[in-house]
């Protein structure tokens, strides 16, 4: 509002030629400016918590207690990071999270692409029902199954192990991936299968050599999204992992928060450390996030 009232009268032509000499210009010009202003303010609001956390992470205890949150550190306490990593066992957590993610994600994609291929390209009874049931899995909150998952892993002697948690991770991740890949495979023209078959390709060759390579962009996007999701997963890890040597990064954050409440600077350094890997992944593979969103937005 204020942008409009301020700008219109100072426009030199507006002063010369009376009340509304260039209605189109004015109507476009000031909303455009207001739009830019609104977006800039929103972005600043969005960036504020990140800046605040970063500033806190490089401040000393007394600095945090005595100075304003937006003031720059009086001394830059970079050693907060090293201290936090050591106290909060960051590297154990990071190694656990990396191990789980790097096994879970490729296997999950492999299995779900196999299933999506069968559902999209092969004929068999109950095809549609199978697709529906698998897709339904993506829509169920995992908390519904936590109790029985706990007792299942307990009975299999896999509770509190990285191997054990892989099974529910895979089961709960597969649905969404099957759903997205199904949409991709479905879009490939049928004629391709037919000509490949006539050339003597068997079903495996058809999947591995022809259909799967066509879905590379979708696979890359799903890989990145799934890596981030697995790295960040909290509720299953909370229920199924119990000792600090098995903890993943998200569990370590709450652990640090409850154990060392008083040390705000280090806690914030710890948060920064824990989000850094996914931030790097995001910045490196930004376009895949958009592509992933694209494939999700297309009605499977």
């Amino acid at each position, binding site marked *: 509002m204020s942008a409009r009232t301020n700008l219109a009268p100072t426009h030199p032509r507006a002063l010369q030629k009376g009340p509304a000499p260039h209605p189109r210009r004015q109507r476009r010009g000031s909303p455009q400016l207001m739009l830019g202003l609104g977006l800039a303010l929103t*972005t600043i609001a969005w960036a504020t918590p990140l800046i605040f956390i970063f500033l806190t992470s490089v401040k000393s205890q007394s600095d945090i207690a005595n100075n304003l949150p937006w003031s720059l550190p009086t001394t830059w306490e970079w050693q907060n990071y090293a201290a936090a990593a050591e106290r909060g066992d960051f590297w154990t957590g990071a190694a656990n999270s990396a191990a789980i993610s790097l096994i879970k994600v490729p296997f999950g994609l492999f299995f779900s692409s196999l299933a999506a291929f069968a559902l999209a390209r092969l004929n068999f009874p109950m095809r549609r029902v199978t697709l529906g049931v698998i897709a339904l899995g993506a829509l169920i909150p995992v908390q519904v199954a936590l109790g029985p998952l706990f007792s299942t892993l307990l009975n299999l002697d896999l509770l509190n192990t990285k191997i054990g948690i892989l099974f529910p991770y895979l089961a709960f991740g597969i649905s969404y991936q099957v759903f997205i890949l199904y949409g991709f495979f479905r879009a490939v023209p049928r004629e391709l299968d037919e000509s490949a078959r006539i050339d003597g390709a068997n079903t495996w060759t058809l999947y591995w050599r022809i259909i799967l390579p066509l879905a590379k962009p979708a696979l890359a996007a799903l890989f990145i999204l799934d890596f981030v999701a697995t790295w960040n997963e909290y509720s299953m890890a909370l229920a199924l992992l119990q000792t600090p040597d098995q903890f993943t990064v998200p569990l370590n954050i709450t652990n640090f928060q409850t154990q060392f409440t008083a040390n705000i600077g280090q806690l914030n350094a710890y948060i920064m450390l824990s989000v850094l890997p996914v931030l790097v992944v995001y910045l490196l593979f930004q376009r895949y996030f958009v592509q992933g969103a694209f494939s999700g937005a297309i009605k499977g």
Partner: protein
Amino acid sequence: MTVTASRHPQLRRRRKVDAPPWVAVLFLAPTLLLFVGFLVYPMFMTVWLSFYEWTGFRIDTPTFVGLENYDRIFTKDPVFWTAFRNTLIWLMLSLAVPTVLGLLLALGLNNRIPARNLMRSLIYIPGVMASIAVATMWVWMFNPISGFVNSFLRLLGLGNFAQDWLGNPDTALLSIFIASVWQGTGFGMILFLAGLQNVPTELIDAAKVDGANRRQVFRAVTLPALRPTTVVVIVLTLINSLKVFDLIVGMTGGGPVQSTQVLALWSYTSSFTNHQFGLGNAIATVLLAISLLLVVPYMIWTIKGDRE
């Protein structure tokens, strides 16, 4: 299909060339085994165990109690109804605030303006961070003494409003929701931005030639083209709001005085903290029923669309 087949006689043998059903079973096997073993089976066990009383320890055996757990949560457990109400509030708020904000930001950032990629990234970045990290960040943001929120209010001369946001039952849930908006808006924005790329520019141009103004173009062309995206955003928002767990665990743990309990967390607390597996699973079953009620219509719609 029939046209192609008649034009190329050799393709009529397609059915014979097609793989037999057992091949499909092989391709589906790993997925189905995992899916049945670690998703379907636990889900049925949840419903099954909701009729039992059990501590969850291996040394104890579950005893059948019929509908007693349901009787307890529906009539004797006040926290259940708080959790139920909060879940609904969360669902409504999530449908309204981050989705509309995401749409507005997408419409704004779809224009050619300076630094739009930077703005998109900054708004989206909280979405890739772990919810539990976001929760911990916002606990510090809301810290009553040195937190950003209260300091900023004092700076604006609104020091009277400064308070213990997460420690006050009246403000705790809304404060958590603010963190959720911060985290979730970017996701909706990216989906809507993707959807906006599907809006046919010829149609917009044609509408402009016909003399439509901006608002008319938006209502007649842009909005209808965004409909599939909107459906996806709404369904994902529904699912995600039923799942809300990490943020609440990390920010209040359901407190103060259970004022921020939601069904997912109350089910977890009953099972794992209070060792009342039957009760926890009864609450989970209610959550499951709500989820199915909300998403099955969408599923049917999608599968039907696939037929075309």
